[in-house]
């Protein structure tokens, strides 16, 4: 394992220190428990939008803290959900009297810890669980679909709604509408290496890829021969389109995401293919996001996320945002 770290035990803490140094105007980082909050204290009368999860998916979630997006993020250890203490602390630090909406990715650990936090918190709290990964069968025989790329879009859109003053019930309803309209799927060309493990999370031969991976180095649906970019994009896009399903005439946001180690030149290439495939089906790409926004450490690979848009979502997507990783209109 070669990584730019001092000690696997202190990676998250050390990185948070660097994040604070890099964004003194945007963020206030608290340690013990670890919470990243918007600089400037709680915004009075505004719903606090809070998320969190294991570290190693940067910029998710800390990179999305700031005006128009998250009020706070709770970073767990690498690939491990945060504890309920962190979430309780985040709520206490950011509730400006309008309550808090917790955005929880659907993993057992995240769900249980956020659930305990909601029970313990002194504020009015609602939770939504995002489960956009079509690679997982949503049935009685699984823990349900995972929360993946859709989380980024959800945090942006709901963050904008909270910023404009929507109340807790409205934010929750909007979040549920986004969750109902977003689907994702990912693939890996290489495995990531978790610092405290030191070896790859799964094995892939030189000509193989893993389709349907999550964001924690957990293996996917199946291993197949790594083909061309066009084959890869189709392998992700078709299950997504079938699932909602998306239909001709739908207006969508297309999010082409790198798992971390895939360079931008490949990502743009894949994005171009996805745009073409959607155009061929009469689906109208109205907004797009391309880059490494929800990653799996140094994993090479990509994911696609498609959100069916309505006018309100477009307006909220376009609303000003000022965070370390997403910024526009300000």
């Amino acid at each position, binding site marked *: 394992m070669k990584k730019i770290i001092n000690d696997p035990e202190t990676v998250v803490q050390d990185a948070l220190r660097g994040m604070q140094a890099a964004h003194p105007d945007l963020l206030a980082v608290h340690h013990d*428990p670890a919470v990243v909050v918007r600089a400037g204290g709680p915004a009075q009368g505004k719903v606090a939008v809070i998320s969190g999860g*294991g570290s190693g998916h940067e910029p998710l979630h800390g990179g999305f803290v700031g005006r128009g997006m998250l009020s706070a993020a709770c970073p*767990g*250890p*690498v*690939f*491990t*959900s*945060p*504890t*309920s*203490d962190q979430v309780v602390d985040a709520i206490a630090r950011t509730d400006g009297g309008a309550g808090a909406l917790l955005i929880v990715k659907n*993993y*057992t*650990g995240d769900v*249980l*810890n956020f*659930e*305990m936090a909601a029970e313990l918190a002194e504020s009015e709290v609602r939770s939504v669980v995002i489960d956009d990964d079509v*690679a*997982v*069968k949503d049935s*009685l*025989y*699984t*823990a349900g679909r*995972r929360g993946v790329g859709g989380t980024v879009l959800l945090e942006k859109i709901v963050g904008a709604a909270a910023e404009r003053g929507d109340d807790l019930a409205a934010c929750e309803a909007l979040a549920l509408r986004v969750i109902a309209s977003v689907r994702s799927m990912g693939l890996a060309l290489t495995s990531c290496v*978790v610092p*405290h*493990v030191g070896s790859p*999370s799964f094995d892939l031969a030189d000509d193989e890829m893993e389709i349907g991976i*999550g964001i*924690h*180095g*957990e*293996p996917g649906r199946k291993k197949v021969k790594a083909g061309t970019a066009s084959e890869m994009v189709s392998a992700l896009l078709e299950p997504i389109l079938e699932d909602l399903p998306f239909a001709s005439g739908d207006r969508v946001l297309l999010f082409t995401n790198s798992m971390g180690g895939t360079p931008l030149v490949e990502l743009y290439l894949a994005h171009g293919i996805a745009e073409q495939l959607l155009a061929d089906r009469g689906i109208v790409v109205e907004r797009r996001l391309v880059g490494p926004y929800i990653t799996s450490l140094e994993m090479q690979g990509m994911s696609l996320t498609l959100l069916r848009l309505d006018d309100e979502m477009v307006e909220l997507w376009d609303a000003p945002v000022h965070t370390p990783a997403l910024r526009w209109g300000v």
Partner: protein
Amino acid sequence: MGCTAADVVAALRAAATVVQEHRDELVRLDQAIGDADHGENLKRGFTAVLSRLDADPPDTPAKVLKLVATTLISTVGGAAGPLYGTAFLRASAAVGDATELDCPAVARALQAALDGVVARGKAVVGDKTMVDALTPAVTAAACADGSVAAALSAAADAAAEGASSTVPMVARKGRASYLGERSAGHMDPGARSTALLLRAFADAAAEA
């Protein structure tokens, strides 16, 4: 002959040692069907437990168990943190403020722990989780001769068997469930850690 607060503390120290010794094994088990952190998570949690027990040892078994619960809840994270945390919290509540636990109290604590895990995680036997180790352990923890050590030893044996029984199972709860059929052929890490913890408690009780 029951368990004092000091005995419970000793049992937890033993458990912490066992967790540290088996950290890599638990990581490897979780790497096969999960995300490779179960050993690391428990190690972090029990290291914190040790230092809080050192700093300020509580004076009743229930307080010890509660300190363990809140420490695990605030340091472990993942699925195991709330699950083990809830288990210890319920166990603490089950034993009241007795200064010494007799065998029935220990059995009640185990039953309460299982109930807590099930309440939080909604898993049933056969889902390939820690419930597959804890359920037979509770059943086996009979107090025929009134010996806590004997009850815990029976529980630990049953838990070990329960953990082994998870190998062929297809996971239906937790992260391993994403793998579907590919989860079969591996022992569940949480079931394994439950068996390890109970064995450590039993051995500590035998030495007390």
